[in-house]
């Protein structure tokens, strides 16, 4: 009997612990971020509006622990504070799971929905359901081509093809002849468009290399193997900031002279630009994407405003070189660029 009692006690203790943890989770983000945001709020004032506390849900195709989407979230949360919004974020890299998350948002009857359409076919049906249920939808980051057809108000992001073309042009300006485009996410339409765009405008030859973005050591090893086997590659273009770091390490171990360039910024990319281990970066301003998505939804709910005139609202491409890097260092360190 004593053994059963300790079993009950143990279960009770665990239940209590989970409950406590869940209550902590319930109160949006805890810990350091709340502290920082509190500081921000104090500096920038509390909610600037007196509209009711609407609920907006953002459902993205992000994997776990993706720094890019962290920045998008920060922007969205800043706008949410300003506009008195209850901001909910969820993500899954698998199309079906992402669709299920959108369905739960519809079930919760949220007041606004923000989605990323990296795999448009998986999301088509469920976005239509949201639109039919009267929930305004804004798409962000991926899927500018499908956004309007799916019934979204507008798309905020960068046109991936145009961004790719900008990369191709920049590579030409720097006199590169043979480039490698590293795609880290299978099935991402936007990634394919970037590499295709770069190939289009690039004067030299460009190859695609597919790696598993969820396994960083594997990414590094794959790039290294490629640089080892083909010594004539003089530029490597990665499609995400963390992958630039892996590419730099791969370059060192392979003893290659290739220039590493990347899409998207983060603190280490900024440092890399400053110390010239990276050539250039193409930023799509994720903070702006998140911020605008929430803010524009608020404007729609408040005033039926729609930005873009039927066309996507572009946040990039912005080509960042060594000179710009100094100015941005402070912001990348803060985690908002």
């Amino acid at each position, binding site marked *: 009997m004593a053994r059963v009692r300790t079993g009950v006690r143990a279960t009770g203790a665990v239940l209590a612990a*989970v409950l406590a943890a869940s209550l902590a989770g319930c109160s949006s*983000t805890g810990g350091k971020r709340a502290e920082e945001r509190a500081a921000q709020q104090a500096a920038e004032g509390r909610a600037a509006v007196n509209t009711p506390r609407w609920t907006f849900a953002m459902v993205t195709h992000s994997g776990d622990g993706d720094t890019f989407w962290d920045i998008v979230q920060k922007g969205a949360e800043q706008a949410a504070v300003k506009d008195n919004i209850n901001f*909910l974020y969820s993500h899954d890299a698998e199309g079906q799971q992402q669709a299920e998350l959108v*369905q*739960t948002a519809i079930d919760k009857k949220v007041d606004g929905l923000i989605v990323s359409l990296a795999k448009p*076919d*998986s999301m*088509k049906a469920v976005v239509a359901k949201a639109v039919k249920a009267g929930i305004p939808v804004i798409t962000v980051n991926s899927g500018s081509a499908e956004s309007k057809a799916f019934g979204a108000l507008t798309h905020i992001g960068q046109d991936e093809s145009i961004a790719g073309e900008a990369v191709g042009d920049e590579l030409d300006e720097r006199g590169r002849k043979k480039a490698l485009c590293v795609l880290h996410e299978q099935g991402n339409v936007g990634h394919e468009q970037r590499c295709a765009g770069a190939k289009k405008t690039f004067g030299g030859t460009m190859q695609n290399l597919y790696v598993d973005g969820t396994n960083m050591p594997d990414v590094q090893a794959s790039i290294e193997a490629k640089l080892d086997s083909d010594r004539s590659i003089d530029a490597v273009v990665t499609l995400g900031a963390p992958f630039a770091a892996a590419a730099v390490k791969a370059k060192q171990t392979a003893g290659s002279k290739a220039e590493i360039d990347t899409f998207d910024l983060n603190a280490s990319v900024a440092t890399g630009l400053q110390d010239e281990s990276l050539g250039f970066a193409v930023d799509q301003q994720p903070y702006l994407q998140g911020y605008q998505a929430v803010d524009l939804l608020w404007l729609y709910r408040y005033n039926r405003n729609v930005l873009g005139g039927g066309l996507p609202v572009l946040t990039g491409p912005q080509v960042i070189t060594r000179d710009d890097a100094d100015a941005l260092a402070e912001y990348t360190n803060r985690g908002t660029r």
Partner: protein
Amino acid sequence: MTAAGQPAAPHTDERLLRTSPLRKLLGRPELGSVVGAVAVLLFFAIVADSFLQASSLGTVLYAASTIGIMAAPVALLMIGGEFDLSAGVMVTSSALISSMFSYQMTANVWVGVFVSLLVTLGFGAFNGFMLTRTKLPSFIITLGTFLMLTGLNLGFTKLISGTVSTKAIGNMEGFESARKVFASHLTLGDVELKVTILWWAALVAIATWILIRTRFGNWIFAVGGEADAARAVGVPVIRTRIGLYLGVAFAAWVSGQHLLFSYDVVQSGEGVGNELIYIIAAVIGGCLITGGYGSAIGSAVGAVIFGMTSKGIVYAEWNPDWFKFFLGAMLLLATLLNAWVRKRAEATK
């Protein structure tokens, strides 16, 4: 005959303790996990608003059904003493084959569906044959199949379709009728019930029937409990094991067709990791990892618990960064509760 004549055994044997029917009920492998399911339901009903509303029921049941369809045959396999780590990606393979075959051959979509059934069953048979021929642990064999299928999914799709995802076949003949069978839904008021729920119920019913009312089911228990003993009394161990892997493959085919006809375009990289979720659902439902004990109904309850937990966390608006932590914690709790209930039920005092 030397045995002394025995009087007819008394109707209630005085050596048997009177156990309440409720306790006997709680001792069954699956009904202990029902207690866990009720606990999870109550928990999220309190903690999450919109969890109990009608539309959420459809969402949770759908999430449970996509896991449950696979968890039923996986549970049978586990009772038979084996694992299948390739189950997750086999679903994707099945969807890819249907789509690519139909498109490349410009055939009626049903032809592709049928070919996919044959090939997927072939994968299952491969698992079974490798296991019985090499006598290596099923963990290793199916791990190999898992890696091979993952690579085949990507490589084959890129080779034939040119990209990592298949071409849309929504406008091909047979698509609409196939969609009705594999990916349609019924809307009752606020509740949207997807057809996978029907498939799930049917598969669980058939699996339960096989397990407890057929010879094959007796063999499954025996092979999982003590394969040498089974072999010694003439149970066809090899046939039983291969049959179990074919069962998993069949369910993978059903799930794959659902995936294809829901979204038309199939991503070749998906499915990795799901095999563990099926195993979790079976174990929560009372299947012993070592084999010889468990039930298909239990796997259904396990799938429901998983569906409720994964969606309930989102309804409850918990911090999404902690999603996986909460999911794991709740599943552990549900399993502990199940085990505790069963122990209490079996205790005599």
